[in-house]
């Protein structure tokens, strides 16, 4: 038993090392004064200075963040509405039809989403740029939010809503005081997923972005095709540290709140842990 445990640890570590190698590799060379990703010559912060001096890059970064935040907020709202809509459909067959339609955009290849949205936007007459990128990010994030919220809704005991109504709550009260607090964790998870998808998206954006507007992914793509520049390394290091802080912060926040409600929700997770 102990032996196999050791092997399993080695395997896991190997996976971790491979997963993190490229990121650490980028970070390591971001301090290289040599100007290339081989042969570390000396420590320098020159590339970081370059990032902060590069207004174009900073604007692109800002664009990316603005798009991601807007897209995830709006798609969270739409997705929650969608999840409640699906949840309220009573006929099972209708519900699963809606759900399959919902999943179309999740399983569609990015290239198809990009190409079809490009046709759509040119047909409707939406100018390619900020608006088209934002709309398409919202569009492909909505189903993700639905998927994250729906299981929480299903977990919710219907008697809870009945009780609220019996006690005289209006539909609005039921929604804001009972339902939304209950599915809060799903909403947050959906929001974060939408944020991630939006920040990470390349293919869809690449299709629907015009000449004047770029996000980080598209910019890196065009720079990477030209050759290596260490300011990209510096930028990615900054992003990595930022993401790390965000995610770890989210994790501990989540854990704290889960600790508070664990007695109440009693989901399978706690049960599984207690069984160990």
């Amino acid at each position: 038993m102990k032996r196999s445990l050791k092997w399993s640890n080695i395997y896991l570590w190997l996976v971790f090392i491979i997963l993190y190698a490229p990121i650490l590799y980028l970070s390591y060379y971001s301090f290289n004064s040599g100007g290339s990703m081989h042969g570390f010559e000396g420590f320098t912060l020159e590339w970081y200075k370059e990032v902060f001096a590069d207004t174009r890059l900073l604007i692109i970064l800002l664009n990316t963040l603005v798009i991601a935040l807007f897209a995830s907020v709006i798609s969270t709202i739409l997705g929650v509405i969608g999840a409640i809509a699906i949840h309220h459909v009573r006929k099972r067959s209708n519900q699963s039809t809606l759900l399959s339609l919902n999943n179309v955009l999740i399983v569609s290849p990015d290239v198809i989403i990009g190409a079809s949205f490009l046709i759509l936007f040119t047909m409707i007459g939406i100018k390619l740029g900020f608006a088209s990128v934002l709309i398409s990010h919202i569009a492909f994030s909505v189903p993700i939010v639905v998927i994250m919220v729906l299981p929480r809704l299903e977990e919710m005991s219907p008697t809870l809503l009945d009780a609220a109504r019996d006690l005289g709550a209006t539909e609005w009260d039921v929604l804001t005081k009972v339902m939304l607090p209950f599915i809060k964790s799903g909403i947050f998870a959906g929001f974060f997923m939408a944020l991630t998808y939006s920040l990470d998206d390349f293919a869809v954006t690449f299709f629907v972005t015009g000449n004047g507007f770029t996000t980080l992914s598209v910019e890196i793509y065009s720079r990477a095709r030209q050759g290596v520049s260490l300011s990209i390394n510096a930028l990615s290091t900054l992003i990595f540290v930022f993401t790390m802080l965000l995610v770890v912060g989210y994790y501990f926040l989540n854990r704290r709140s889960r600790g508070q409600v664990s007695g109440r929700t009693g989901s399978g997770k706690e049960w599984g842990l207690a069984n160990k």
Partner: protein
Amino acid sequence: MRTADTYSSHAVAPRARNFYLIPYLLWMLLFVAAPIILIVYDSLFDVDGKFTFANYGHFFTPVYMKMTFSSFWYAFLITAFSLLVSYPAAYLLTRTKHKQLWLLLIILPSWINLLLKTYAFIGLFGTYGAANAILETIGIGKQQILFTDFSFIFVSVYIFIPFMILPIFNAIEELNPSLIDASRDLGASPWTTFRRVIFPLTINGVKSGCQAVFIPALSLFMITRLIAGNRVITLGTAIEQHFLVTQDWGMGATIAVFLIIAMAIIMILTGNRTRGRR
């Protein structure tokens, strides 16, 4: 309408239901139905905007057929390798202390921009990169790694691993541990337990993982450009080429139609995902 149906006493008033459905159905109409219809519509026009079925004829020429087959072959390889790496990893993850934290650390790299990671591999696999430095020290000598099938599949698998691990991890987590105990108590070896109990019960996780990898792998175009150096041409690359470079939207849309059909077949083969339903 079966509103008289009282099997569920907790039904919400129809008024409220309609209210929620309106914005959601609007979204669906505009961004799910319309794009698919438009793709099919566009596939019926040639590059000059004339109505034609010629695009479909072109698709069945050897050039496109070969591309389709190689696209499927690469997607298959990528999915298989991802599964091979991810299943044990997901299983071992569920056995660790603080598994949620470890899972988070596995997922974390997928939060880093895809392009940045791909960019890193250009450095890692380059002529003077770390991979070649290692090969040189163990005496194999410098190899051309970048712009090969190997690098393409490696990077793709790297990108997709978290998406494979997550559903499998969840499936294993949902597994009732007493089933494993029962199997052990009844004298099954660990391998038998895995083959007859654990794997069949987590097959849904495997399926959704494969779905999550195979379909995007069919349509990769950025990695083919940056890592495979245009040597590998997938359906995705072809679509991108037609839409953004040669501006032959009709042909691009035709390929997209076939990709959508392929996708639908895969979805049916891997079974309807029953997420969100009991």
